[in-house]
């Protein structure tokens, strides 16, 4: 057993040695004076922001599902949103890497920082955070003017639909992102904010999950005035609307069913919190203030 203690002592010395050596090591210094010219974006909405700020020629690489604007699809890829490839990022030789703030992407950012790269992690979970992110990106890339202009434009367009709505008379909206099993948009999400901006209010109360699965009981209890379903691209909206009307008929007590206010909008418009967020607001507002028709 004595030999075991000897090994333990050696381990302690080794650890101490490691800590000592660490003091000697200096990190690589990266030039931070000039504005970044080779930017890597690790999320589709970050890519959209960069394009919207007119920085498309400074983008070095994007993720595979950065599909808007179409020009983004031609950029070199660094993997997808959930699986960014650090080697591809390094290959692109970036001087700035933009990531989102949640663990998986923050982890990538940390690893790149350790390797000596400049990274910027932004939380874009709410519309306020989105505005802050655009401003931040603007300041980091020396394009504050473009950022201010972009934000001005967006705020203008989303000011229209819902501002006139009287608080007390807001329609209750149930935004269904999946019918079977039923998942809806919950409180505290950016889509919920879009509903509010569009002049409505979420029929569902606060829940544990952001996009909760709900059962028939909760559906009836929420008593929505308007039901909006989302259709993926490639699905015929009018056909989905017909199926939806047919499906919800069994809940004959719902105000939405009684008035036939069941609509289908494109899933793309509300799937991303990016420069096109006004499209989502307009789509929802369209369902609230015009009766009938699809979006």
């Amino acid at each position, binding site marked *: 057993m004595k030999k*075991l203690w000897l090994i333990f002592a050696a381990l302690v010395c080794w650890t101490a040695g*490691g800590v000592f050596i*660490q003091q000697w090591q200096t990190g690589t210094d990266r030039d931070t004076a000039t504005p970044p010219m080779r930017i890597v974006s690790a999320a589709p909405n970050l890519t959209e922001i960069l394009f919207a700020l007119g920085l498309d020629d400074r983008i070095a690489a994007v993720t595979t599902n950065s599909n808007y604007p179409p020009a983004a699809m031609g950029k070199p890829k660094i993997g*997808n949103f959930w699986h960014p*490839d650090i080697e591809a990022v*390094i290959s692109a030789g970036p001087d700035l890497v933009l990531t989102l703030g949640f*663990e*998986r992407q923050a982890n990538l950012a940390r690893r790149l920082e*350790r390797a000596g790269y400049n990274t910027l992690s932004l939380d874009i979970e709410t519309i306020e955070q989105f505005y802050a992110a655009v401003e931040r990106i603007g300041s980091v890339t020396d394009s504050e003017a473009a950022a201010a202009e972009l934000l001005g434009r967006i705020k203008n367009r989303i000011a229209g639909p819902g501002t006139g709505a009287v608080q007390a008379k807001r329609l209750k909206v149930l935004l269904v992102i999946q019918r079977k099993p039923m998942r809806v948009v919950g409180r505290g999400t950016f889509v919920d904010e879009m509903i509010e901006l569009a002049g409505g209010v979420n029929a569902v109360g606060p829940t544990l999950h952001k996009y909760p699965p709900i059962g028939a009981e909760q559906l009836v209890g929420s008593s929505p005035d308007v039901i909006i379903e989302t259709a993926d691209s490639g699905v015929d909206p009018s056909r989905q609307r017909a199926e939806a009307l047919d499906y919800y008929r069994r809940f004959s007590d719902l105000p939405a069913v009684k008035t036939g206010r069941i609509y289908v909008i494109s899933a793309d418009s509300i799937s991303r919190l990016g420069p096109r967020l006004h499209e989502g607001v307009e789509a929802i507002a369209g369902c609230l203030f015009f009766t009938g028709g699809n979006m």
Partner: protein
Amino acid sequence: MPIFYRREHVKTLLTPRKLILRTCVSLVLLAGVMAACTMIGSQPIQAAKMFDRQHGGRDYEIFVHVRVPRVFLAALVGAALASAGVVFQALLQNPLADPYILGISSGAGLGATIAASAGLDWTLWGRSPMAVCAFAGALATVWLVWWLGRLARGAGPTGLLLAGVVVNAFFGALIMFVTSLSGSRQVQTTIFWLMGNMTEETFPVLWISGGCIVASVAALYLLGPLLNAISFGRADARSLGINTSKVAMASFAIAAFVTAVAVSLSGLIGFVGLIVPHAVRLLVGPDHRQLLPISAAAGAMFLTAADTVARTAVAPAQLPVGVVTAIFGGPFFLLLLIRHAKKLWR
């Protein structure tokens, strides 16, 4: 001078010379595998270009910042899991034991899940909250299982195994409970982390965990002859004069510690701790004095190769390393078993 040492009768006995030779061969092979794997990845790099600062800066960056740390990490984790597997198989007298059987997996999982769900934000020496909580969870659970196993003292290794199974089941249920209450982002993060993943760790982390793992393997090697005797049974070993409770506790503690380090570094990677000891045992025999160093080297080689496959097979995405170890480990083991089936019954 005993006659039999000159005849063929004792091929199976381990001699210092055999041990040193076999260990050196394993280490050389390991070095070769590691070197080869640093040159393979989703981005092609060339050794010649690496040191050309003008044009090869990118290759050098990838090599130094991504490949080398990752290969070292895979080797360390593989060595840790394989050595722990050897020890647990000896202690439980069961060739089907693996390092996670006594609750380490669910304990680490619970720690990581709670850290992810609570949205903890701090880092400890550059390790994420999930890694630190997984380490703590693993050690706490192992202590719990050991204590429960001692309560069922009369049942021997079965008591310990049962305690492990019960704790795994209960903590597994807790993990599901916490997960069901978490937002989808945290759930996905937890699952990814638990499935086993390798990233590039910093120098201090590699240095310190490397030291821990090498020291643990060395300590376990010293316990080799005692583990040989314990694999026959506690009472049996005691009748030979071995202080089984001390040896069992020491080897269990070291094996659990090294597994907790491995899990905190890279999540739960299965198969390595189960089949590498098996395969090595088939090749060189059950003597723990050689099983430990050679399994450590073999585990390191296996996991390094598996990780290389994991990060290149479906590039730019990455397969979870645990998937690769299972897919390649299974048939490989079967092949080995068939070829050397006779050797098993030497």
